[in-house]
């Protein structure tokens, strides 16, 4: 056996990738960190509202980690595995403490304690925040610690490098990656004893979303084509409040409602009066009316559907497909806490939201599903206030959040754990950092002891095979004499996916979309680059990822059509109820003969039995 020191590769430099990097570097194992952008520009910066954790103030009002878990499971409509959620919610307070020690500028009370805000799906204040740019602040805090390890020589950053494919040996074990320098266009192999994908969501499959342009889902779809499975890819979160735009839909954080913002439309259809001229009694606060307990803070899928149907019924502002999100009545101090998002609204629309209500509409926001991962369960000592039987994840087990491909892991939004049918607001930042911190040691343990053979012993033939595979793809695109325009195919893909597979999903419409995507895949074979040069060619990178987006789109549609029930974000007017038998299951999607192949896996509910998810709706 070679005594060569193990190495770990982290793909993606958002919260999940950076927190994993810190843990692995701290354990003394060198890390190669790959990102398509300087890591400080990763999509995690876009998270606004906050990060959930039980805290002493909430605890003394009856809140606990157990309730945080329960809320997460109830919000997710009981589709998720419970042990990882147990572990995540019980670690959450310690994660906040660590971020606090790293210097993240969390908002403070007069006494200097960390301030808290209310968020969707909870009746307790358990969301920690830094203004309305919490994701940015957390990402920077982790980026700084990674920079420290980089200065110590423990981390090598490969920024502006694109992940192309996992290197998988004859035993089916992942041994590294093929990546491409986005400036010089050089394609190179990198070996490692454990590889973690921390590559985020797939919003670009839907054209315009709240996600960054780098969130194509391409990296995940490449792993899928290489044999990794998807879990629940049909579960896509549509955020209720975004600013519709020509190039993207910009997020308007749930924190606006958490701080007291109200959603309303004029009671009279087609009312064209300016909002401030409409008196209070002529405004319809439909969320507050329908959900007296949670009001504007029902989970996102519920708020999204209510807004969508209010507009379908003709109550949108002046007959349009937009509703008001109103913070104009809030006190100045509260508006200050929301400054980061309110100034963005003003910059893009020209209207000052502290004076006039914002106009918003739902937009694709988050991928609950993603790469399928496993974990090792462990019975835990019951914490006071917890249920009788508690099952978490085993600390440091070498398979925590590993995909079905040994040696290939998935952390953060790219995996399918934690959120089930819908993610609660301010649980994403927690999930990403938890994965990195808790499962980072699993990477180390796998790289040191869990692996079947060291990466350093991998044969050159296998490495060459994968390099050639990727080089051939590039050559084929560059030499294509086709006619199809990749940007045009992408636009049509996005329009179709948004129309068929977001807020409302019917069998008929999704079948049509599946035909459209198949046709687009055919059209793609005739795709043509407008730039065939070999220096910083973004046209090539985009066009290559487009193929992966098309393949991901099919993997979303097939299980969405087959899931003949409504659960969380997956709303089927043709099957409006949740049907636990047979759908209390993970959709497993495998790539077989260029097609998605669907099967199911049971989801155990060892701690919290499923219950009806009503949020106290008045009938």
């Amino acid at each position, binding site marked *: 056996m070679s005594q060569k020191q193990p190495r770990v590769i982290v793909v993606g430099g958002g919260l999940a990738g950076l927190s994993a990097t*810190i*843990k692995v570097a701290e354990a003394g194992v060198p890390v190669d960190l790959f990102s398509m*952008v*300087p890591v*400080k*520009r*990763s*999509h995690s*910066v*876009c998270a606004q509202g906050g990060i959930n954790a039980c805290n002493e103030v909430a605890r003394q009002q009856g809140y606990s980690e157990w309730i945080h878990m329960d809320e997460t499971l109830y919000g997710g409509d009981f589709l998720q595995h419970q042990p990882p959620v147990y572990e995540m919610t019980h670690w959450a307070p310690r994660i906040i*403490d*660590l971020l*606090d*020690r*790293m*210097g993240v*500028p*969390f*908002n*403070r*009370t007069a006494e*200097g*304690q960390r301030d808290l805000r209310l968020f969707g799906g909870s009746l307790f204040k358990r969301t920690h925040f830094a*203004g309305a*740019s919490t994701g*940015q*602040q957390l990402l*920077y805090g982790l980026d*700084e*610690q990674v*920079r*420290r390890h*980089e*200065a110590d020589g423990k981390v090598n950053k490969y*920024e502006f490098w694109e992940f192309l494919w996992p290197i998988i040996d004859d035993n089916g074990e992942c041994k590294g990656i093929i990546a491409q320098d986005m*400036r010089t266009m050089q394609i190179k192999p990198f070996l490692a004893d454990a590889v973690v994908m921390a590559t985020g969501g797939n919003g670009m499959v839907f054209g315009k979303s709240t996600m*960054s*342009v780098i969130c194509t889902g391409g990296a995940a779809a490449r792993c899928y084509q290489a044999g990794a499975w998807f879990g629940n890819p049909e579960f896509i979160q549509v955020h209720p409040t975004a600013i519709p*735009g*020509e*190039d*993207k839909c*910009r*997020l308007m954080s749930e924190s606006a409602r958490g701080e007291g913002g109200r959603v309303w439309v004029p009671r009279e259809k087609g009312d064209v009066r300016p909002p401030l001229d409409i008196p209070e009694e002529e405004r319809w606060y439909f969320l507050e009316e329908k959900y007296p307990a949670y009001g504007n803070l029902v989970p996102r899928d519920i708020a999204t559907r209510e807004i969508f149907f209010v507009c379908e019924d003709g109550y949108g502002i002046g007959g349009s497909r937009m509703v008001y999100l109103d913070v104009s009545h809030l006190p100045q101090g509260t508006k200050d806490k929301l400054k*980061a998002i309110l100034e*963005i609204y003003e910059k*893009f629309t020209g209207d000052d939201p502290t004076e006039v209500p914002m106009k918003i509409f739902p937009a694709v926001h988050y991928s609950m599903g993603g790469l399928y991962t496993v974990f090792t369960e462990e019975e835990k000592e019951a914490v006071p206030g917890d249920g009788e039987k508690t099952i978490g994840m085993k600390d440091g087990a070498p398979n925590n959040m590993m995909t079905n491909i040994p040696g290939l892991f998935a952390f953060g939004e790219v995996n399918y754990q934690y959120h089930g049918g819908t993610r609660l607001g301010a649980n994403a930042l927690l999930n990403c950092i938890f994965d990195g*911190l808790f499962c980072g040691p699993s990477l180390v343990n796998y790289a040191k002891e869990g692996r079947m053979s060291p990466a350093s012993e991998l044969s050159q033939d296998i490495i060459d095979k994968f390099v050639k595979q990727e080089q051939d793809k590039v050559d084929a695109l560059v030499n294509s004499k086709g006619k199809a*325009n990749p*940007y*045009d195919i992408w*636009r049509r893909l996005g329009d179709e996916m948004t129309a068929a597979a977001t807020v409302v999903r019917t069998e008929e419409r999704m079948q049509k979309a599946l035909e459209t995507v198949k046709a687009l895949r055919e059209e793609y074979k005739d795709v043509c680059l*407008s*730039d065939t*040069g070999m*220096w*910083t*060619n*973004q*046209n090539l990178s985009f066009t290559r990822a487009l193929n992966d987006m098309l393949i991901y789109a099919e993997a979303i549609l097939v299980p969405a059509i087959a899931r003949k029930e409504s659960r969380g974000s997956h709303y089927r007017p043709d099957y409006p109820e949740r049907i636990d038998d047979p759908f209390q299951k993970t959709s497993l999607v495998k790539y077989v003969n260029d097609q998605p192949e669907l099967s199911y896996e049971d989801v155990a509910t060892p701690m919290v039995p499923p219950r009806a998810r009503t949020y106290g709706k008045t009938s």
Partner: protein
Amino acid sequence: MIASDAKKSFFVKVKRQDSPEKNPYYEVFELPYKPNLNIISCLQAIASNPVTVDGKQSTPVVWDCSCLEEVCGACTMVMGGQVGQSCSTLVDELIERDGTGTKDNPITLEPMSKFPVVRDLFVDRSSMFANLKDIKGWVPIDGTHDLGAGPKEDPEAQELRYQLSRCMTCGCCLEACPQFSLEGNFVGAQVFGQTLYFNTHETGASLKEDRLDVMQQAGGISDCGNAQNCVEVCPKELPLVEAIAKIGRQTTVHSIKKFFTGKK
């Protein structure tokens, strides 16, 4: 200027450069007008149909972008002669401000001039990240073990740190600075802001002297000419004047202390 209701199209002139060694050149594109377009939308439209006004088939313009909501800092460029984020700069604003957008007087898009061009509007800002390493831009925690909460913080102190922490390493402050240049060693306002950010944190302050050593060197705080252009262009309105003043004072005190204690 054409009245906006009559506008059907507008013109954009882009500074192109195929690689660092090649000479730059300009290309003009005609784009369909819509209200509320941002500059990114123009570049996206060009990418899908890269044909110049002369009918020449060109290539998509290369530029850096990611979030498109002015928080990642990637898409900085010089638009109509002014530096800013191309996601939050609207075509209507430029037409209104400069009277541009016509065929004879198109909206100009150029890369920042204070950084090496990689290609077209995409520049190399790695020096900004390297500077963060030089100033030890981190809080030196003892490790990620569970060691309880960080120090309590006064809301006013938090407010200052929060404002400084919104720096997205976009480079606007450096592009606008008369002291900062491609060849020179002046580090610029970004670094002063970040130095104050870390020096203000209770644990971060344990590396304060190391950071001020860097501030004392050539290219440090004494090279600041106080033109205050940085504050004018900062998209996040960071308190950079305050940072420059405070870091100036901290550095002076640091030098005097070093002089009297004889420490090098």
